């Protein structure tokens, strides 16, 4: 009962606090909203990049070359083994087909291949890997595994391309994380500074609270609620701005990247992004008020 009464008091006090110093709280809310909007845009960019990586990564194939003298049935066995190992789809390429493809790729100079006494190309298997294997590490270990098979001479995949794509995605993700951490910390101090003004306006109230036996936790609680409310409102504003941005720019981006984006790729913030932003907003607001009220109680 007492806990319920105290909780009700904290909420009432927090709302009254916001009503008494609306401009200060608005400043904190706008700061949080701007930071979360930037974070949301970075998050959407990473999502877009992930989608691009997956689309381009979808073309990544592992090609295994069988040893000289291997037969079509050996190649079919290898294809089956790789398919069951990776849940991908494998195609056997005969030496004749490989030669024809090489001739086509060489275009003008391809005719020189007709003078060869015999076809030097072996049977090969082209494996289109499942999404779970479209990472550098997975492809590398799959290639090593394939090379260890007795019928196989060599295995090849677009290592550099995959590694480069993954590196770009990783760099953007880390840059976003570092950027968000730095800006987030700055925001905590900005929010703390603004809240300190609000707390200063209520110093008489705090003095009397302490006089009549309020614990530090009791004094802090309404300010923490205020901080959390600021964070939530800031996050809601950022989400609204993100939705507005995706609604206006999203269709153009989708047109621009239509050839590489997976079908159904959404550029507007999805529910998981919305939750992330709301939680981040809440954490920023709470941290700011925690710093501010901590400073006050120390003095």
């Amino acid at each position: 009962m007492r806990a319920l009464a105290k909780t009700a008091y904290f909420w009432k006090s927090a709302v009254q606090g916001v009503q008494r110093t609306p401009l200060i709280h608005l400043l904190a809310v706008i700061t949080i909203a701007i930071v979360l909007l930037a974070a949301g845009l970075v998050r959407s960019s990473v999502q877009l990049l992930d989608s691009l990586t997956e689309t381009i990564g979808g073309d990544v194939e592992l090609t295994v070359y069988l040893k000289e003298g291997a037969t079509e049935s050996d190649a079919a066995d290898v294809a089956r083994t790789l398919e069951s190992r990776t849940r991908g789809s494998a195609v056997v390429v005969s030496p004749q087909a490989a030669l024809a493809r090489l001739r086509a790729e060489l275009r003008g100079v391809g005719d020189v291949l007709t003078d060869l006494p015999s076809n030097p190309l072996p049977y090969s298997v082209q494996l289109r890997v499942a999404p779970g294997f479209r990472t550098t590490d997975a492809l590398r270990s799959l290639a090593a595994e394939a090379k260890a098979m007795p019928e196989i001479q060599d295995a090849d995949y677009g290592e550099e391309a995959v590694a480069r794509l993954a590196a770009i995605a990783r760099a953007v993700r880390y840059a976003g994380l570092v950027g968000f951490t730095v800006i987030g910390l700055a925001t905590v101090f900005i929010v703390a500074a603004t809240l300190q003004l609000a707390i200063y306006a209520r110093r008489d109230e705090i003095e009397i609270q302490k006089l009549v036996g309020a614990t530090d936790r009791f004094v802090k609680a309404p300010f923490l609620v205020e901080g959390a409310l600021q964070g939530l409102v800031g996050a809601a504003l950022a989400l609204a701005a993100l939705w507005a941005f995706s609604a206006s720019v999203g269709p153009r981006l989708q047109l621009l990247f239509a050839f590489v984006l997976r079908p159904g790729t959404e550029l507007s913030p999805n529910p998981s992004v919305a939750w992330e932003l709301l939680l981040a907003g809440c954490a920023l607001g709470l941290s700011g008020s925690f710093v501010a009220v901590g400073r006050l109680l120390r003095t």
Partner: protein
Amino acid sequence: MIQMFHVYKAYANAPPCLSDVTLQIEKGEFVFVTGPSGAGKTTLLKLIFCAERPTDGQVLVEGRNLSRIKSSAIPFLRRNIGVVFQDFKLLTHRTVAENVAFTLHVLGVSKVECEERVRKMLKRVGLAHKADCLPQRLSGGEQQRVVIARALVNEPTILLADEPTGNLDPELTVEIMDLLCGVNVRGTTVVVATHDASLLARYRKRTIRLDGGFVAFDRNELKERVWMAAG
């Protein structure tokens, strides 16, 4: 109830505010602490509600040694001590009832119980009809009665009043002092710091006089008279 043993209180680069103060206040007593400005009256009260800690010596309140009390225990000690100040310390943007209820919110008293206790307390101090007024619209005496109501609404065992009539005219002074006496009659220990000699003459309660931080005298004229008459 309140005991002090060889208490010293000094601030940096200043002579001590209190020197070798030893005294005992019993449960249910009414005590005036008097002396000129700077004698240490306010400091003595601050030591009792733990707004200050003694530099040396022991302060015991209800058996608890305040020289060794943890900071986290101070709020719980203060819930048993009501404090009244000369400058009222009322929240100007809150109504009279809200100011009084402030103490009960800290204790987590439910809304219904809170309203009932505030109503009774305002009736007791004669301000039931002003419950919804803002403090600025009240006279000095009424404001001080609100402060007393706020200090008493959680039924503390000790009431400390620091110059409670310092800002009031003689008529309102009597009104407030009568109220404090009434509180004492109900069993609350009351300690009033004042430099107003007319109050001491009028109410003839136990008086502790401080001078330069020392206890100059500790006299209970009424008791002395009773003893003399008896003996």
